[in-house]
């Protein structure tokens, strides 16, 4: 890996930020941020969720404006009025939540962002083809976005930046949606771009990736710069400390467990959705034993949502025995009946599924806790509900002024602790948790992991679906992966590797030849 030594000669800087400050109601998102990038430099912006990385990027891209501070572009101070001005200056951005339009084609999407520079669509399609081949990111210009995988969508976002004369490419958490193999090929592209003189601002919270890719790093914590470093020379431990502060304990290892009898049994589960934008589940089989955590890895949009809906009871199945809780076939039972049989469920969307945003924590306790004697003769027992809510808040250290605070006023980490606590305190025999720690700070993530392990040790069966492969290796006892609606074989965590799970995530299951043909097919559809 080649690494450039950066000399602080200010004239050669492509972008400099000086004292950038941004205040939101109730939160100082950026506090006097300084940052500088040279031409051809890959610069990491490292920080936890909520550290202020995205806010800073939005200001560079002109989506929002700073309250104070200077942005200096190629030696001249500038005010970036809007994204189209940033684009004309040569700044491109790949968003974490893609800014693509599902019902339009690749070419149409790119044309929209280019504005008047797009020219006619036929020539643009040719340009797209050339650029995407040049950087090893194959794309079909005429395909509709909704037919693309997440990785392909990211390519569209990147190519959209590359078809213009690009000088600075900003990528916001680009690897969180990719398989390990896709991450590697993305890095190849980025290094080639940097070699061609393009500066790259790489936003991440993953230390290993930053170490592998970036020349320099700026680390943010709670809106402030806590340090600058050369990742290859500083250890990940030091970077982690700068990121989370010295007083936050960093996750430890957890002992693995074998579990006892299978509690959740999924048999021959196939599901055709009536949503044109949803994935189809194909013949899924697996078991989760009481006293173990099974992790399902996979890139978003490969059938996780559909599988979770089939488990929760939101989507009823064709045959009851396709999903069983121990000896009871539950495939035809609604969510309430499944809860009565011992299901607890932590959805991916905290606000707007796990909790009603406008309702108080007390009311949100009742939301799924109603089976715990909180309702009598159809009327709500206010006293018991309050008691239950207060116990969750106390036991799971939820930071909130009171049980009357609306769910939307809590931080992501606190709300997630509340939701996990609410489900665990109902003593579930099976807990299904989707992406349990996305977007939460490391302190809350550790607390959530410990709570899951404790529940496992009490003998509950736990299924964790996550895009975060490191998290799955940390807490799962057994692992498998989902790709395009199909599930890989399951292996004990200690018997597999990140590379193997990564292959499963791309649909290369245990029979390499057959599976690789399949992978080619899926990407060509």
């Amino acid at each position, binding site marked *: 890996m080649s690494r450039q030594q950066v000399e602080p000669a200010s004239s050669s800087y492509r972008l400099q930020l000086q004292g950038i400050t941004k205040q939101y109601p109730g939160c100082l998102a950026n506090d006097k941020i300084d940052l500088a990038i040279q031409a051809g430099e890959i610069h990491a912006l490292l920080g936890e969720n909520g550290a202020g990385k995205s806010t800073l990027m939005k200001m560079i891209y002109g989506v929002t404006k700073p309250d104070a501070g200077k942005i200096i572009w190629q030696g001249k101070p500038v005010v970036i009025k809007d994204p189209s001005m940033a684009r004309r200056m040569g700044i491109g951005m790949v968003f974490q939540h893609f*800014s693509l339009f599902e019902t339009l084609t690749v070419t149409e999407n790119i044309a*929209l962002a280019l504005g008047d520079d797009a020219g006619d669509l036929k020539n643009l399609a040719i340009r797209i083809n050339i650029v995407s081949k040049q950087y090893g990111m194959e794309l079909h210009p005429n395909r509709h976005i909704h037919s693309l995988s997440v990785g392909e969508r990211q390519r569209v976002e990147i190519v959209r930046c590359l078809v213009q004369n690009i000088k600075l490419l900003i990528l916001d958490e680009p690897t969180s949606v990719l398989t390990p193999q896709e991450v590697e090929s993305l890095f190849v592209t980025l290094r080639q771009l940097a070699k061609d003189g393009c500066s790259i601002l790489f936003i991440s919270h993953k230390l290993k990736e930053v170490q592998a890719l970036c020349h320099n790093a700026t680390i943010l914590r709670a809106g402030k710069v806590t340090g600058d470093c050369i990742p290859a020379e500083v250890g990940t431990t030091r970077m982690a400390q700068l990121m989370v502060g010295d007083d936050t304990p960093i996750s430890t290892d957890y002992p693995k467990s074998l579990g006892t009898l299978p509690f959740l049994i999924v048999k021959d589960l196939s599901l055709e959705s009536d949503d044109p934008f949803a994935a189809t589940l194909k013949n899924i089989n697996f078991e989760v034993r009481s006293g173990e955590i099974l992790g399902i890895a996979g890139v978003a949009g490969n059938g996780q949502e559909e599988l979770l809906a089939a488990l929760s009871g939101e989507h009823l199945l064709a045959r009851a025995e396709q999903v069983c809780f121990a000896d009871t076939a539950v495939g035809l039972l609604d969510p309430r009946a499944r809860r009565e049989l011992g299901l607890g469920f932590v959805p991916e969307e905290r606000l707007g599924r796990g909790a009603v945003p406008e309702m108080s924590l007390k009311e949100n306790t009742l939301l799924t806790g109603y089976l715990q004697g909180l309702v009598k003769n159809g009327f709500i027992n206010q006293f018991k509900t309050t008691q239950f809510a207060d116990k969750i808040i106390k036991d799971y250290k939820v930071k909130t002024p009171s049980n009357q605070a609306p769910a939307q006023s809590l931080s992501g980490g606190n709300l997630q602790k509340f939701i996990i606590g609410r489900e665990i305190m109902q003593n579930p025999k099976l807990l299904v948790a989707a992406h349990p720690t996305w977007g939460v700070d490391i302190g809350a993530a550790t607390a959530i992991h410990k709570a899951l392990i404790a529940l496992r040790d009490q003998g509950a069966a736990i299924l964790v679906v996550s895009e975060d492969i490191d998290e799955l290796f940390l807490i799962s006892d057994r692992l498998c992966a989902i790709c395009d609606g199909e599930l890989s074989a399951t292996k004990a965590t200690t018997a597999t590797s990140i590379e193997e799970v990564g292959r499963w995530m791309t649909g290369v299951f245990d029979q390499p030849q057959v599976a690789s043909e399949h992978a080619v097919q899926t990407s060509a559809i």
Partner: protein
Amino acid sequence: MDIDLITNVLYAMVRTGTPLLIVALGELVCEKSGVLNLGQEGMMLMGAVVGFIVTLTTGSLILGFLCAILAGIAMSMLFAGIALGLNANQVATGLALTIFGTGLSAFIGAAYVGVPITGLDPIAIPVLSEIPIIGKMLFAQDLIVYLSFVIFGLVYWFFKSSRMGLTVKAVGENPHAANVIGLPVMRTRYLAVAFGGGMAGLAGGYLSLAYTPLWAENMSSGRGWIALALVVFATWRVERVILGAYLFGLASILNLVAQGLGYPVSPNLLAMMPYAATVLVLVMISSNVMKSKMYTPMWLGKPFHPHG
């Protein structure tokens, strides 16, 4: 059924379907941009009354139609100011527009009820209008009917191959994404709403200046609502709007058919037909969840605040 009856029914079908077609095309553009304006009925009535009064006082039909369009646009900007500018609930604001427009049009039109004017006359195109059966339907209509054909073609082209059409679709699908890539979300939406308003005003003017040249309170009698259902019927596809509009035109003139065939049916039951047909069509189209999801603008009716 003799040829004459068929010819006349087809002619009346297009004539009756025209106001529906115009309103529905306007609303389609508006909904494609992600804005649900339930105020069609109120905008139509304002177009009808303003057009009527202007033509009555100036004697100019052209001026009447122009003012009808302007009245529709003015009403739609009232909606846009509250629903887009102040981020109010679009359903409630649309209802308010209908209630307000109904009241205001009745108020300013109170003195004009029952006053006769000379309406817009049909222009038969020589030769073409002589074609049996379809000649009268397509080539012996008035200018606004011909104009509606043109508007249909323009809207079709707009979504099929124009840049602006692409922008409207993008804004309606995901305003947040549109905003971060620098598309003018709010401006696009205001323009789409204004177009919807102008079309509703024009359709209203057509009712009071051509279809039945007089003013009566509430004379649009639910056409604005039917047009909203038409957009659902068309699953937001332009080419199906025209089909739907004429089908509803046909349902509205069933009394003509019944009379022609000599079946006496209660006028009150026949008057019910377009509304019953609307329910029926909604049921048939909407039950195909797959299709509805495929074509419904994803952000329809949801508020969007540019910096939110």
